[in-house]
């Protein structure tokens, strides 16, 4: 499985360690750049904070338990403030990623996005069949895709993920603006007001925000499971990859791997590269 953070530009192969996983020769390559990895974990942390603080804002359970003095301790205002701040940061990452999706082509230059051009995978019946077979344990072969970094299921889910990120950001801005008197939230909320009217008022905006949160919680569960499952089933080191940057790719006909190959791909990479 490829995660959404896979770098779309052709990453210079920093290393080519050959090893064997699950009985198949593999080549260890550098797939996740430092920025991609950092942004993955930063966004992860942001989402955790946003969900936790959001639950508190929806139902402020800390009330009066920690003994507060109204004049000096504005706990809810503080939590809301940091919730909104984290939201803006997440939106910045989201917009950057969407820009990359739409406009960065295979050569890493401005153009029709390389990932956008993979969209036909959604309508590729054979790809759907192969992928579902693989996930339903009817085949051990990870579907081999030629023109897309993503299987159809991933493509769909990640598109939904970014749609959800946009929904939660837009509703978040509309909800944050009334608390502020000026600034980016206020004027962007003015621009977004027709959306508020279209969904039927601030109350529905509030519930959309809340329900979308559940999408992220569900996504996280399934995402972690699928990444681990794929990593184990195909031996592609994906879970390790999002930490170290190195993942394994199929390399038919390569030499048998030695146990050392597995140990420190990074160190190995330096030695070889």
């Amino acid at each position, binding site marked *: 499985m490829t995660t959404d953070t896979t770098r779309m530009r052709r990453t210079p192969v920093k290393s080519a360690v050959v090893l064997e996983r699950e*009985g198949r020769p593999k080549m260890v390559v550098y797939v996740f750049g430092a920025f991609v990895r950092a942004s993955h974990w930063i966004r992860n942390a942001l989402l955790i904070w946003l969900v936790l603080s959001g639950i508190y804002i*929806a*139902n*402020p359970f*800390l*009330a*009066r338990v920690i003994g*507060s*003095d*109204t004049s000096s*301790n*504005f*706990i*809810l*205002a503080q939590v809301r403030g940091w919730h909104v701040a984290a939201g803006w940061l997440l939106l910045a990452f989201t917009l950057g990623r969407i820009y990359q999706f739409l406009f960065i082509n295979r050569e890493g230059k401005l153009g029709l996005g390389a990932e956008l051009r993979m969209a036909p995978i959604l309508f590729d019946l054979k790809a759907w069949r192969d992928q579902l077979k693989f996930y339903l*344990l009817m085949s*051990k072969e990870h579907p081999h895709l030629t023109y897309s970094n993503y299987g159809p299921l991933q493509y769909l889910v990640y598109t939904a993920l970014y749609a959800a990120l946009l929904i939660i950001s837009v509703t978040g801005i509309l909800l944050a603006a*009334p608390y502020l*008197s*000026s600034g980016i939230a*206020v*004027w962007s909320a*003015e*621009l977004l*007001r*027709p959306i*508020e*009217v279209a969904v*039927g*008022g*601030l*109350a*529905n905006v*509030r*519930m959309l925000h*809340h*329900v979308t*949160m*559940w999408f992220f*919680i*569900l996504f996280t*569960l*399934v995402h972690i*499971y699928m990444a681990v*499952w794929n990593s184990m*089933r195909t031996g592609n080191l994906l879970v390790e990859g999002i930490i170290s940057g190195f993942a394994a790719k199929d390399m038919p006909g390569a030499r048998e791997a030695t146990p050392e190959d597995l140990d420190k791909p990074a160190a190995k990479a330096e030695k070889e590269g």
Partner: protein
Amino acid sequence: MTVAPRQHGLGANHDLDLRTQEHYEWLAAEADKNLDRLEAQDPVNDTTLDEVLKRRGISRRDFLKMSAVMTATLGLPPMFDLRVARAQEVATRIPVIWQELQSCSGNSMALIRNANPGTDELLLDLISLEYAEILMAPSGQAAEDVLAASIEKYDGAYIAVFEGSVPVGDDGNFLTIGPAGETGVEKVEHIAKHAAAVIAAGSCSAYGGIPAARPNPTTAMGVGDFLASRGISKPVVNLPACPVSSTNVVGTILEYAMFGRLPSLDAYGRPLWAYQDRIHDKCERRGHFDAGEFVEGWTDIEGLKEGLCLFKVGCKGPMAYNNCGVVRYNEGASWPIMSGHGCIGCSEPGFWDTLTPFEVPLAGRLYSTPFGTDANADTIGTAVLGAAAAGVAIHAGATAIKAATEKRYEGQEKE
């Protein structure tokens, strides 16, 4: 939901904050021009301000004080104090027709239940209320005749105030009015067509209100939406709330008298001067909200006594736009949050469906589920998450078994 046509474009809120001295001077000149124009007309009400003041025992001085308060409520600077006073003087030139529709008449009640006369009460004496079922002496055919005569006499000049929603279901037969059994639909169409401007007083008239609550048996609509659906284009101003405070009705009429047009509206057709800020932003309990100090439940006597924030007992102030906290009800005596119950957001479009249940925070809104019981988003979310976790566990187990059999199979092959 469709809303009445907007008078202001994007950024209307923002514009209001940026008004400058020059802007106000320009506005004052506009007001003067319009007031002169009105003054030149013949009064349609045979009373005068002086008479009304004398009858009610109000000194000129008190009258000016009341006007100054009204000016501030309208969000205008003190240079308008005298202009607001003058607007009341010339209000005798403005004919008003007040039509009840599918309503409880609560808005009329709120308007006339002022024991001590304030601007609200005064204006009611001053404007020429041509037709108002609740207040007028004639009834039956006599009342109908008055209405027909006023519409003819003030064609295109009167303000039509509607109270209550328009039921359009069953050809409008859910509501029939008068001896001829005219339907609400016909009434609204007829009265609005000949009006200069339309005021929708109260939430029912603005957005459909309680009669429009799911499943909306009478297909009730707000007046603005209804007129739009029939292609009748009139300036409509929505004054939602249940009931609308008399100040907001009177302020809107005064604005009309002063500027000859309806006030600037927000995205839901509500005048910005009254509905620009949320209940939450003008709430006396707000400090406790930000401090995270809440009344924890109706048995939390301690918290109720201390006047803590009512969010956790269902206050919808953060979702509702209105100026209740400032103008209050019953001669400014109190308002819901002051009396200890959270805001139910009665001035929001769709509040009857979107802000219920009223006594839990919004996150507790109930959705119907295929299992026959209603549940809130968190319960549903937890259930779905549980199902997903179970799915993951089953898939993981199946994978383990499959992997084991694959190994055994490979082993056999090697042998």
